[in-house]
């Protein structure tokens, strides 16, 4: 298993101030699981991955894999990337254009000291190419591969060395939408079948949610939240995570009552709402309430008031038909709520509509902006 402990990476950037690419990044990846570093570009996720690979030298911290220290600022240890035996798939795939498919995949075995014999190499490469579905193309020039095939080859090259750890740097970002979807399933299947400990870097939240056992959301060099995909999506810890992972509605408010547990009541522009608290809140704390569009239920008849759900009435402001669902913009008082509903709802624009949200789907998050303003 992989342990990353308080990793810091800084770049001296000429005369410009130091760039803090990663700050105090810590996480553990249990054996055989897929761990995703998720965040916008420049959040430090790729720097962290490259530090694990040994392609960047962090400023301080420690990286251990199955008990072996590969980097430690205290122990003054830095194992060169070619001595770590980690497989890595690069964003550009980094397929060597001067070699054919077989040679690309065989390279990690060929350069190994006291490596396997020629015949063993051929066996292993054939097996791994079959695993990614490229066995028919072994003799093809690497430059003649399609994007998806290059991606598979990059994966095969990373797998052939039987790595202790698999590192994937946005491996699907260069594929078209259809292919990306398919490769997502294949990647998941391979990872689960081989039980490879994997660190995956992406800025695409749907990829992260679909593939991971665990996700670390990063922002501005720091890990903001670590959790299962469902945790991250349904229980974001702050406004950034709620906003970055999926679409959401934000409503400002202030706490007017707490029930001592996770529940609270918040006064908003749309009335008093019962909410779920991501963190413990005090009376009169400024909060933003986050509600996912798919958790905003719309009905033409007024719902029966009950179960403590939050309800209000509005007017359909605009709607966008997207095939498998329809996005409604509902104007309630001065705010606009985005709702994602089944296409069977056909309320015309300008008509009144009723809104209902379950209390546990309304997540109250501390309002940093209000705190900074205060």
């Amino acid at each position: 298993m992989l342990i990353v402990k308080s990793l810091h990476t800084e770049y001296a950037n000429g005369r410009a101030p130091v760039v803090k690419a990663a700050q105090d990044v810590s996480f553990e990846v249990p054996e055989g699981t897929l761990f995703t570093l998720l965040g916008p570009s420049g959040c430090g996720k790729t720097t962290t991955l490259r530090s694990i690979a040994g392609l960047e030298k962090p400023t301080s911290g420690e990286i251990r894999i199955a008990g072996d220290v590969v980097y430690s600022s205290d122990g003054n240890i830095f194992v060169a990337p070619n001595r770590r035996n980690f497989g890595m798939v690069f964003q550009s795939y980094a397929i060597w254009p001067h070699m054919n498919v077989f040679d690309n995949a065989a390279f990690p075995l060929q350069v190994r000291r006291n490596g396997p014999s020629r015949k063993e190499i051929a066996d292993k490469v054939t097996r791994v190419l079959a695993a990614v579905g490229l066995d028919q193309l072994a003799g093809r020039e690497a430059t003649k591969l399609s994007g998806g095939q290059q991606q598979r080859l990059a994966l095969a090259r990373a797998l052939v060395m039987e790595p202790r750890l698999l590192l994937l740097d946005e491996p699907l970002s260069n594929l078209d939408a259809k292919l990306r979807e398919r490769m997502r399933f294949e990647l998941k299947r391979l990872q689960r079948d081989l039980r490879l400990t994997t660190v995956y870097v992406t800025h695409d939240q749907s990829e992260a949610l679909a593939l991971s056992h665990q996700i670390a959301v990063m922002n501005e060099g720091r890990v903001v939240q670590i959790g299962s995909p469902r945790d991250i999506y349904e229980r974001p810890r702050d406004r950034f995570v709620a906003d970055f992972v999926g679409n959401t509605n934000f409503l400002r408010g202030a706490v007017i009552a707490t029930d001592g547990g996770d529940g609270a009541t918040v006064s908003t522009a749309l009335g008093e709402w019962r909410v779920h608290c991501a963190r413990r809140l005090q009376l009169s704390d400024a909060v933003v309430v986050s509600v996912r569009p798919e958790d905003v239920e719309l009905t033409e008849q007024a719902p029966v008031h009950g179960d403590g759900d939050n309800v209000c009435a509005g007017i359909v402001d605009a709607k966008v038909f997207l095939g498998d669902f329809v996005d409604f913009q509902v104007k309630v008082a001065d705010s606009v709520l985005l709702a994602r509903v089944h296409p069977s709802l056909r309320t015309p624009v300008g008509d009144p509509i009723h809104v209902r949200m379950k209390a546990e789907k309304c997540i109250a998050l501390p309002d940093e902006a209000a705190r900074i303003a205060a």
Partner: protein
Amino acid sequence: MEAVGRLTDVRRQDSAAAWSVDFKWIIVGASLALVAWLALVPLFFLLWQSLFSPQAAATPAVFTLENFRTAYGSIETLRLFANSMQFAAGAGLLALVVGTFFAWVNERTNTPCKALFYGMAIIPLVIPSILFTVSWILLASPKIGILNHLLQSWLGIDGPVFNVYSMAGMIWVDGLHYSPMAFLLMTAAFRAMDPALEESAMTSGASIVQTAVRVTLKLAWPAVLAALLILFVRAIESFEVPALLGLPAGIEVYTSAIYQAIHQYPSRVGLASAYAVTLLLITSFGIYLQTRFASHVGRYATVTGKGFRPRVVDLGRWRHVTLGLFVVYFLVVVVLPFLVLLWSSLQRYYSAPSLAALHNLTFDSYRAVLAYPAFSTAVWNSIMLSLGSATVIMLTTSVISWIVVKTRLPGRWLIDNLASLPLVFPGLVLGLSVMICYLYVGPAIYGTIWIMLIAYVTRFLPYGMRYNTTSMLQVHKELEESAAVCGASWSMTFRRIILPLLKPGLIAGWIYVVIVSVRELSSSILLYSPGSEVVSIMIWELWQNGQYVELSALGVMLIVVLFCFVMLAQVAGRRFGVAEA
């Protein structure tokens, strides 16, 4: 048990890692030391020599300004400076005008057979400057020039029409010789320009000429200035034309003055060094300005699209005129010089073409050249030197360009500049510096082929640097990182990933260095001694002895061999090329 095994395993890996890191820094350090030595040490000795009296067994060197006093103490100095400037500016301008015109015709008009002409632009490269100069003497000298004979009999006038032994003649020959280079430079500049800017001028109602002058040329202005400065520097460095055409007419420029100072008795190395320092200052300033202008070029270069082809200007009937001009140009730059050498090589004694002379055609001169004892030595030396210097240069600069492009090593800009520094050395100045340097220090290689190898490697290092840096910039850094992650050491990565990916640039640069090394004369002329002469020196000596027909025979063979080499290399380059962008 397993834990213990793993622990020892890790330790073994660590020591291996340390070893590979060391090896990398050894290679890097050696390359750096080599470049620093080649670029700086001769320069130091040149300066030192210009400021000290010659060292002899009995008399130690003492500080003196005598050399500079002699070099600058008379009115001759002004004339030398004025001659050099006039010659270099004239030749540079002529080359630029001719090259720019044909580049524009080739890139922006619908002149027929364009592709063919672009391909031919490489051919003048195979005619060494000394042969080009000699062929123009045979064409346009007042006494034996064929053109003069023809025009005299056609027009019925006495006296020569052309006199190649004049400032105008020097500018003409040198300017023509550098015009293909101007053509290539300006072609690149036109290709980097957004044709939409010209098209919008056309739709605004501007004529072809108005567009070309007021938009195209205006936009290409920084590139034009940069090209002009390069051509100026090349012209002020050239030695063959001033020596062969200028000296007989009493027109001295810096390069011929340096040569004269060394080849008089007793030779005055200090005086030559003083001239060389001045020349070096001029070329350095030129190259400095050139890089300043070149850095502005990017501002106008707005085209980045793929596979784009600018719309061409329809010249109408004029396109036959431009085609005709192209043909004339090709005749003047390639065909006429080669034919006149071929003609002369088939004679027993040189005579102008005539029916009578046609009966005397013979291969005697070829037999004579092949029978010279010096011939096989010279050919062998030329082959060894050109292959050796090309190989050393391309391998060394591949490492250096890796350092410059791929690492964040502090001070790598300094290394880059050091490797490009020899660009400001005129061949003659470099030869002089290397000569002085190895007279005083280092192994006893003076007068051997090794000192020439050092001079060639130094002189052509910047070309290797340029080819390798260009290709290195196109190698995505993840290609090499993925090799590291796959477990390859630095040297393994360099050998199996980087060098193969550089191959197109490596081969192209290697070919280029081979060709310019075979043509090299101005450094060799101060460094050779019996036994270490090369083919270009042999041509020079044949000229000095007045053996024109043998010279022509040797020249024809050299041109044919170089031509075949270039063609072979082009075919090979197309086959081996790894998707040249």
